[in-house]
């Protein structure tokens, strides 16, 4: 390509920066105001516990092993979600045959304690065992 020479281009951006200056900043107000996340954003994994049957399809397909199923017998199980392993890919939502597991448009709040990043999604474990675990997660 031939090198062309444009004398006016020594301050080529000048009109641009003046336009921007007149228009004002396009920054979001986030840390001082509300975060506006789009409705379809794949954020935290939530569950409708009444629909979950503990079939383990989500556990099988999760690429990051972010969901664990602790099971004993047919009706006694506990579904645990780890936000710090999750890949936020919504594969669990696709895999779930009962429409129980889904993602909402919220990001996971930052934390300084990694052991807090353990969420019991479904708890169908008899009372006496589960209380100790619940205290830990809260």
């Amino acid at each position, binding site marked *: 390509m031939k090198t062309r020479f444009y004398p006016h281009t020594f*301050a*080529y*951006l*000048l009109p641009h*920066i003046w336009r*921007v200056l007149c*228009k004002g*900043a396009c*920054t979001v107000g986030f840390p001082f105001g509300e975060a506006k996340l789009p409705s379809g954003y794949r954020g935290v994994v939530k569950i409708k516990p009444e629909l979950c049957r503990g079939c383990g399809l989500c556990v099988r397909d999760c690429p990051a092993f972010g969901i664990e199923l602790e099971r004993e017998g047919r009706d006694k199980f506990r579904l645990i979600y780890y936000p710090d392993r999750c890949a936020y890919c919504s594969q669990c939502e696709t895999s779930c045959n009962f429409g129980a597991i889904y993602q909402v448009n919220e990001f996971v709040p930052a934390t300084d304690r990694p052991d807090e990043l353990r969420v019991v999604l479904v708890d169908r474990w008899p009372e006496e065992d589960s209380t100790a675990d619940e205290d830990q997660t809260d």
Partner: protein
Amino acid sequence: MVILFRLLVFPGFLFLFFSAMLFDWVDRRVIARFQERVGPPWYQPFADFVKLLAKEDVLSTGAHATAASLLPVAALVAVLTAALYVPVGGIAVASFEGDLILVLFLLSVPAISYFLVGWISVGVYSVIGGNRSLLQYFSYEVPFLMALAAPAALSGTWSIARIVAYQGQTSWGLLMQPLGFILAMIGLVGKLKRDPLDIPKAKSEVIAGPLTEFSGRKLALWHLAMEMQTVVGIFLLVNLFVGDSRFFGWLPQLPVFGLKALALLVLLSMAAVLYARLRIDQLADLGWKILAPLALLQFVATLWIIGL
């Protein structure tokens, strides 16, 4: 007592310190607005300065400890001494016939100590940055000095206050020597190592140049020296090129002076926004093949006009 007040408060140390902070903030804010951002809040330079002062002071093994502590102080002292002779709104701490030359000399001390601090550090980036700063010094200094000598030649004096007075009798230096003003501005950008001539401290090439190995108090002092150098350099150019406040005769002198200084600062910010960083050989070409002949031409033209 008056002398002490002038030395420490106005237009001495405190005034310069606060102007440096203000100029730094205005600069960052204006650049941010040109880039469609919001920019930092007004207290940002203070927070940066205090934080750096309170940070741990690490010195890498192999570096010369005494020199490392002395050089930022030397730069700061040179800038502060230069500031004594630069009038702010007509008020200077001291002045004598020939103070312009002294100011120009003192303003080149920071460049030398910048080079030296790169030289005494052990890091590769520091050494390369220091070498680059010296090369840059040789490229911009000649046109810068010649551009500043022209107003002095025109008014027939080396005293800054007299040059201002001469402009009061005739017209602004900016109107009489527009070319000289542009050359002086480019030279100032090179002197302050601002974008687009931040070659010695280009982030993507030499990390932070000579200051790569420093943290804590030394870095804070270096930043302060650089910011104060910006203030003094801009004040000097205001005096030499738009020194007279005749056009704003009804206003007090000091705010007018401040406004003019801020206008020059915005020009510098615009230069930072408009151009990509030059390479060091491109800067040398620019300095010696374009700026220096132009400055010479302008100087000769000035002498010819005086001769008429």
